């Protein structure tokens, strides 16, 4: 069902947690639908300096959260904002069709966090 990469990120998720003094927080999803994702970012010199997540959701939701934090870390804010759901799915060597929306969620959460950061810094 899941690729080895997905299972790896599910079982050993990177960057789990919260950032106390985050520069941006993005929260998407709905617990009723079984998914709820929060991404915290810390920005330094226009780059994602630190990033953490917390997710209530399926294996794919956790793995995509983990993967997007890896993809975003160190990128400029603009580049991080441009990460698409396909980028996430591809980096995980693919996701089952019904789980593609989970990677959507991860991209949305990161964008929401960046929006939140930008709104505070404009």
């Amino acid at each position: 069902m899941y690729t080895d990469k997905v299972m790896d990120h599910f079982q050993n998720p990177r960057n789990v947690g919260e950032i106390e003094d985050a520069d941006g927080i993005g929260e998407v999803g709905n617990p009723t639908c079984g998914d709820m994702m929060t991404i915290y970012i810390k920005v330094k010199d226009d780059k994602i300096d630190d990033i953490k997540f917390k997710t209530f959701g399926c294996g794919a939701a956790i793995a995509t959260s983990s993967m997007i934090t890896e993809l975003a870390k160190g990128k400029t804010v603009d580049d991080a904002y441009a990460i698409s759901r396909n980028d996430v799915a591809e980096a995980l060597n693919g996701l089952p069709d019904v789980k593609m929306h989970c990677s959507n969620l991860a991209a949305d959460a990161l964008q929401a966090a960046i929006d939140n950061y930008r709104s505070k810094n404009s």
Partner: protein
Amino acid sequence: MIYMDHAATAPVRKEVLEAMEPYFTKYFGNPSTFYTVGREAKKAMEESREKVAELIGANPEEIIFTTGGTQSDNIAIKGIVLKNKNKGNHIITSQIEHPAVIETCKYLEKNGFEVTYLPVYEEGIIKIEDLKEAITDKTILITIMHVNNEIGTIQPIAEIGKIAKENKIKFHTDAVQSVGKIPVDVNELNVDLLSMSGHKIYGPKGIGALYIRKRTRLEPILHGGGQEKDLNPGTENVSGIVGLGKACEIAKEELEYNQKYLTKLRDMLIEGILSNIEESYLNGDLINKVPGTANFHFVGIEGEGLVLLLDGKGIAASTGSACSSKKLEASHVLKAIGLEDVDSHGSLRLTLGSENTEEEVTKVIQATEEAVKRLRSMSSIWNQ
């Protein structure tokens, strides 16, 4: 591996496989033929029919072999309503039936029939009052499952059957999850039709049976060479039939012991989980429940992840979470007993079998505790 998903399927017992083997290679004849190797096959089939009948208190002539629980349900429900459509068009069932029954009813709704889906309340059990109220002079079939596959609750089948009889309405029960697990007697239960499946009782997959009370007429839904009273045509799955017979024989012998043993294991499991894991709850009634089944929900986590983490520790378990289903819909059963979507997402079903041990139960409690902790530590909706 610790296998705790016996409501999904069970391994074939060694004795069952041994009984089957000669019918693949030695007595391989087509039971419709009348030379020796065909007659041997036929004979084995009829012996198996007797064993199936014996387990449920029926006559062998009242048993037809099918390709599983789903086909039994389809043959029974469509067979009765198509045969009796000039008498009425109303069917009564429950909200927590297996898809084999629910989807069949939905299909019939699209074809001119009306269906009442009785509620089951928090306990997961229908109310006889609701049933009585639902009956009209157009009601031609009541179909209510004996034991639910997700939460294990037992419906008051004998009582339903009495009411059906009084009202001259045909009564079918899907007993796929009760046969071989609790006592099932077609006469005590007052049923006209009863579905069962081999692979839930340590028999092979792809074989089942349908009990059809004498003088109950069905319209066939499959057409062909006339096997199984014209209701399941096609060359008979002889080895599967022999396996089903053997599985029934063993189930009968071990029923009493297993009921006690599995009740003990299950209660240990429930006690262990509820006392060790905070914010954990049992789904469905505790008392009217089949011995081996326990269904929990854990606040703040999602069931698919839980099942995957348990799998990582060699434990096979199941969830009613939407995220694990193909259609991303939460379990209709958990919904029917009043669980909020967010709670049904955190559900875990553990169903025990006779090969499980106390040691395994202890391990599963511990592994579940760890997995729930871990998932909560990364959950965005868990805050302690």
